């Protein structure tokens, strides 16, 4: 018999169904799924949350999250989430997307949901490769990175350069909060959790569009162990995709997204004076 009363200090969150995921061993998707589910539990919002998971490794998300789930076509999650949120603004709506989905085929949907300032939460897994289809070059694959469709390494002369989503979206007036995190150590997992929780809290509070980019790995398609993958990610991806907060309108001292946008364009007559009565 134990001498002291023990308490459970870490267990599977309720919002994550007791189902073995389709993810490969060591895949960081599982960590991020758990952080989302913990957040849903801690905010007590499972009953009003609707998740959107589009094509890619996250496509089976509806089997893993206990909240209502909508599967979306490749790249279209922000549009689908927009439709859901506009119908039921009291729902908490999140989209969980990979890099091919969010930064290639769905770039238009990503940019415009952001610039509309949809009050939704986007979780963006950037692992610089298409995982589900077997390791093709992604919009975020690094220069010289070897993939199935860049067998000689990403040649920037023909394939161009990777897209830095947080930096790109930070030029827009619409987003409330943009942060890039990673989950390679317990300390970074805690930071990622804090960011994800804030991204959901923002929606609960009506602050607006929040996107958390999680720099991630793909051991299977990178052809490395999970441990080697983290090393490769730290040496190659983090310098290209620096961690940090790219937008946080409240922390920047603005009252709201709208106030920040108005301040930025205050010299425009129509912005300052308002439109048609």
């Amino acid at each position, binding site marked *: 018999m*134990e*001498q*002291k009363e*023990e*308490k*459970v*200090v*870490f*267990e*599977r*969150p309720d919002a*994550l169904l007791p189902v*073995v*995921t389709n*993810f*490969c*061993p*060591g*895949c*960081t*998707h*599982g*960590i991020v799924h*758990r952080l989302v589910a913990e957040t849903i539990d801690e905010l007590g919002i499972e009953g009003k949350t609707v998740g959107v998971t589009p094509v890619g490794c996250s496509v089976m998300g509806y089997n893993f999250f206990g909240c209502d789930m909508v599967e979306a076509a490749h790249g279209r999650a922000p549009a689908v989430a927009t439709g859901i949120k506009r119908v039921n603004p009291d729902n908490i709506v999140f989209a969980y997307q990979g890099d091919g989905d969010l930064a290639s085929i769905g770039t238009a949907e990503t940019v415009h949901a952001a610039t509309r300032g949809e009050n939704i939460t986007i979780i963006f897994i950037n692992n610089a490769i298409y995982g589900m289809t077997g390791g093709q070059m992604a919009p975020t694959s690094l220069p010289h990175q070897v993939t199935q469709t860049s067998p000689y390494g990403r040649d920037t002369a023909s394939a161009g350069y990777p897209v830095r989503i947080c930096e790109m979206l930070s030029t827009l007036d619409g987003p409330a909060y943009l942060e890039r995190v990673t*989950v390679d*150590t*317990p300390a970074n*997992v*805690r930071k990622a959790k804090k960011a994800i929780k804030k991204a959901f809290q923002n929606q609960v509070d009506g602050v607006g569009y929040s996107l958390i980019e999680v720099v991630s790995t793909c*051991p299977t398609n990178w052809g490395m*162990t*999970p*441990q080697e993958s983290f090393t490769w990610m730290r040496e190659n991806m983090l310098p290209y995709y620096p961690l940090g907060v790219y937008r946080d309108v409240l922390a920047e001292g603005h009252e709201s997204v709208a106030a920040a946008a108005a301040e930025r364009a205050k010299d425009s007559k129509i912005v300052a004076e308002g439109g048609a009565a």
Partner: protein
Amino acid sequence: MAKMIVDDAFCKGCGLCVDACPLHIVELDQDKITDKGYHPAHCIDMDACTGCCSCALMCPDVAITVWR
């Protein structure tokens, strides 16, 4: 007494918990193969476990429960 328990049904033997443990008391059990064909993680010195949760924080399969 702190302890960590791995649910073999979920563990895929990736070893991220092994690297995360500050006390180096988590290992993959080479004598055991799960139904899915993995060597599952286990604690080799439960008396030393402080229940810090580092292993669980890194587990992508939410296979670890920690008591403290």
